[in-house]
């Protein structure tokens, strides 16, 4: 059963369902079976309740069958999906990996969920994550860390660790994650799969619990570029409920993948000088260089650029994102939802403070305090104000690279492969530094994609990140597809259930 679900791509499943060759019940049962088994060893899910999901699937199948009868060819017909725990699905618990929201049932559907449902997806549960998206290892979840399918002693990455591990382990073909500083791409890289962070404004954020509002984007994780494109096509596009969503209708990137030339002639890929020095693991570096050779062999030219401001990306990001987070998390006060402290004899302020202190984890408190600090009287200009200006300058620096004829900027997705559980939990700063390559795309709003390029000597996956100009997701998908088709990287972690 597990093998069956895991071996199929989303594209195959939807084709089979649309052609009547795969029964929805069978697909749903297989998915339930594999998620249940996978979760037991990897802790990919939160609030996993097989019976509840099974009931929900029966309802979903009923609705889906009737729409399949009236409307042929739903792009995600019968494709089992997992949703990151910070995206609203009406009626389901949405806890953002936090104890504070452990009893919070979403009252509405996120826009991406409305779209997935209309496209025929089967929602099979919620994936584990770093609390409110704050983390790079999934160890900041109130529901325990996610284990890496390639080696269970290692982290899956974060914050979309549950989604990445589940897709990697073959529990589902695709999942939705969210990416504020690398939270789709870094776990995708650590787990040896594909992850796409679309351009800021490309996918509606309505129904995504905000961490850093000017950084957050929802995106897909998958085991192939075509599946990534399939899901991306469904979720992208304007939304009147999100004022920052772009009013540009996305064309079908999946169709374009087949129509585009099957090589990369004329494509110029830049590497960044400042990226390839200190802190970059040599094995990762070597794998990255080998991957560039593959791109070259497909016709791309590789150039080297200098982006001196990028060394400021991490402090800039952590100032701005935590500032936004400190405000975004102020609504968690125990008045309207979430877990209020049990002590009934508290003043209002004590009730607020106690509820928040009991409900939030260590890292979340730290980031709220950081954000509060950088916005507080006397510090605003030198922190928030300054960081805002540097962000704009970084944007300009990247823009000028693309204006100079570069189509893509390539780097490793992360400076290292997955690290051991608990290796970095006592040192926030070193954890923050692992986002060095991914953060830039969020600062500048650019689309970026991570794809697997092999494993290190310990058998842990290595990822490569491509970053493209605003709203040019197509070139990301098209180029990564060239790599995928030539290299056919082995995406199958072994011994998960051993």
């Amino acid at each position, binding site marked *: 059963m597990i093998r069956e679900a895991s071996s199929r791509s989303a594209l195959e499943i939807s084709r089979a369902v649309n052609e009547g060759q795969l029964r929805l019940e069978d697909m749903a049962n297989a998915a339930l079976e594999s998620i249940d088994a996978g979760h037991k060893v990897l802790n990919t899910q939160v609030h996993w309740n097989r019976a509840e999901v099974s009931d929900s699937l029966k309802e979903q199948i009923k609705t889906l069958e009737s729409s399949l009868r009236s409307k042929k060819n739903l792009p995600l017909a019968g494709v089992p999906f997992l949703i990151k725990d*910070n*995206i*609203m699905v009406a009626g389901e618990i*949405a806890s*953002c990996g936090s104890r504070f*929201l452990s009893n*919070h049932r*979403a*009252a*509405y559907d*996120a826009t991406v969920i409305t779209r997935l449902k209309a496209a025929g997806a089967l929602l099979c549960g919620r994936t584990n994550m770093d609390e409110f998206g704050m983390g790079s290892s999934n160890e900041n979840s109130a529901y325990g860390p996610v284990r890496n399918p390639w080696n269970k002693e290692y982290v899956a990455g974060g914050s979309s660790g549950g989604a990445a591990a589940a897709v990697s382990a073959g529990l589902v073909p695709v999942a939705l994650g969210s990416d504020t500083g690398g939270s789709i791409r870094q776990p995708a890289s650590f787990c040896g799969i594909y992850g796409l962070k679309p351009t800021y404004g490309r996918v509606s*954020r*309505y*129904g*995504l*619990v*905000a961490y850093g*509002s*000017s950084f957050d984007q929802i995106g897909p994780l998958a085991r192939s570029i075509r599946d990534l494109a399939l899901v991306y096509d469904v979720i992208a596009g304007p939304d*009147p*409920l*999100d*004022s*920052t969503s772009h009013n540009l209708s996305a064309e079908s990137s999946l169709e374009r993948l087949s129509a585009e030339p099957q090589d990369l002639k004329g494509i110029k890929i830049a590497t960044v000088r400042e990226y390839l020095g200190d802190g970059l693991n040599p094995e990762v570096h070597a794998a990255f260089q080998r991957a560039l050779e593959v791109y070259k062999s497909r016709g791309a030219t590789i150039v080297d650029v200098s982006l001196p401001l990028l060394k400021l990306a991490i402090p800039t990001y952590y100032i701005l994102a935590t*500032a*936004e987070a*400190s*405000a975004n*998390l*102020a*609504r*968690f*006060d125990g*008045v*309207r*939802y979430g877990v209020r402290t049990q002590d009934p004899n508290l003043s*209002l*302020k004590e009730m*607020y403070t106690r509820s928040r202190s009991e409900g939030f984890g260590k890292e979340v408190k730290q980031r709220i305090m950081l954000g*509060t600090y950088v*916005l*507080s*009287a006397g510090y*605003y200009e030198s922190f*928030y104000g300054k960081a805002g200006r540097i962000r704009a300058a970084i944007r300009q620096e990247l823009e000028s690279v693309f204006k100079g004829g570069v189509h893509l900027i390539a780097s490793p997705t992360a400076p290292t492969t997955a690290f051991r559980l608990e290796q970095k939990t006592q040192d926030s700063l070193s954890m923050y530094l692992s986002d060095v390559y991914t953060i830039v795309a969020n600062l500048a709003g650019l689309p970026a994609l991570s794809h697997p390029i092999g494993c290190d000597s310990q058998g842990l996956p290595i990822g490569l990140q491509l970053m493209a100009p605003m709203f040019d997701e197509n070139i990301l998908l098209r180029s990564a597809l060239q790599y995928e088709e030539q290299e056919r990287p082995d995406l199958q972690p072994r011994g998960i259930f051993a």
Partner: protein
Amino acid sequence: MKDGASGYKSLLERYEPVIGLEVHCQLKTESKLFCSCKTQFGAAPNQNTCPVCLGLPGVLPVLNRQAVDYAVLMAIAVEAKIREKSVFARKQYFYPDLPKGYQITQYDLPYCENGRLQLDSGRSILIERIHMEEDAGKNVHGDNASYVDLNRAGIPLLEIVSAPTIEGPQEAHEYLRKLRAIVRYLDISDGNMEEGSIRCDANVSIRRRGDKKLGTRTEIKNLNSFKSVERAITYEIFRQADLLDSGEKVKQVTLLFDTASGRTQVMRSKEDSHDYRYFPEPDLGLVSIDSARLKAIKAKIPELPEQKQIRFQTAYGLSEDDARQLTDEKELAAFFEAILEKVDAKVSPKIVANWILSEYLREHNARHWTWDKPSIDAENFASLLRYLGEGTISGKIAKGVFETMAESGTSAESIIKAQGLVQISDGAAIRTIVRQVIDENRDQVALYLSGKEKVLGFLVGQIMKLSQGRFNPGLANQYLKEAIDEFSRGA
């Protein structure tokens, strides 16, 4: 504490009050500022809410175009500078009526600055800034707990901030009344202080006459009637003067006005003042008010109180005072002009104005009429004035008829006919009564003939009394004189 007008006068010889007002004005949109919930007043708790204004996780604001258009109308009306690209910000503090833990408001880049509002004295009050923001909900306090109702949360507000150049409680009152008139003329707000659609905070300080430096100010919160504004400011000026007189210092505090005791009470001191940690709202883009939009909105500006007052003076020959009173409220001015349209040249604008400002307003206020439900409409009122102008009824009768109209809501015509109040101009009928009065008042007639002309008035009064006021007083007068002449020649 000294009190009363004389105390205040002597205080003013020593101190100069400096007052600034912060006015929050609810805009009359159908839906809220950032979500599509109703703005209607009076629903059960939390019935006008949605994920956005409940501050549920994951929601995002979407700006209401009408609210921005209304805001621009206000800016144009006070001749302010409008910023083409303005920015929303988050103002952060924890309070149960603030569901997101921050208010979406405008901070250092508001859409509107440097407006002005002219007082009757001719002095202009500078409006430093106007900005858009969302209203908070309401906390209701019980004995052991408080209860949160978010129906009001997210209703669009304009915050209108005056420069500290208001010189006294009465000026504050006038400024506020004029602001209210403008928003009502523009039809962008109900402008009702008692229902909270206009709310006012006052910054009050005083300085010794001749001092350049401003004194320490206090802020009085939540003044919810015109009267409270005046009372609270007066109280606060006296309080500060007493402190300074006795050599103490005014502390910078936030105060609440207690309407029952008429005193201000400390709510919080400067030390625990908030650090709001403003920063630009990342969920919204710029508020864009370009020249095309501005032009389109400008075209919708109606005649405003000031302009209307001037027109009433020049076109209708009204006094400045009458014109100002009539234009104080848009509906009153409209009522005046509607009546004017329905009467002929025999009824002058001055007469219409007098009738409205005395008779009509008295009943309007005493009977708590509202403009959407007047008990006497313009046509009915005009017909009464027409009867008066044509001489069908006398002024005295007209007043009586008007009272009956106010009481019963029936038409002037039916009252006059039913009660037989039509003025009598029939010579024979009047002459009969004239003769009767002369016969019964020989002494008075003799006095008149001896040169005491005042007596004539008494005699006319007697005639009118006997006619129950229905004789045409001019004719009564004329016939009386004729009859006395005749009498004296005959005698």
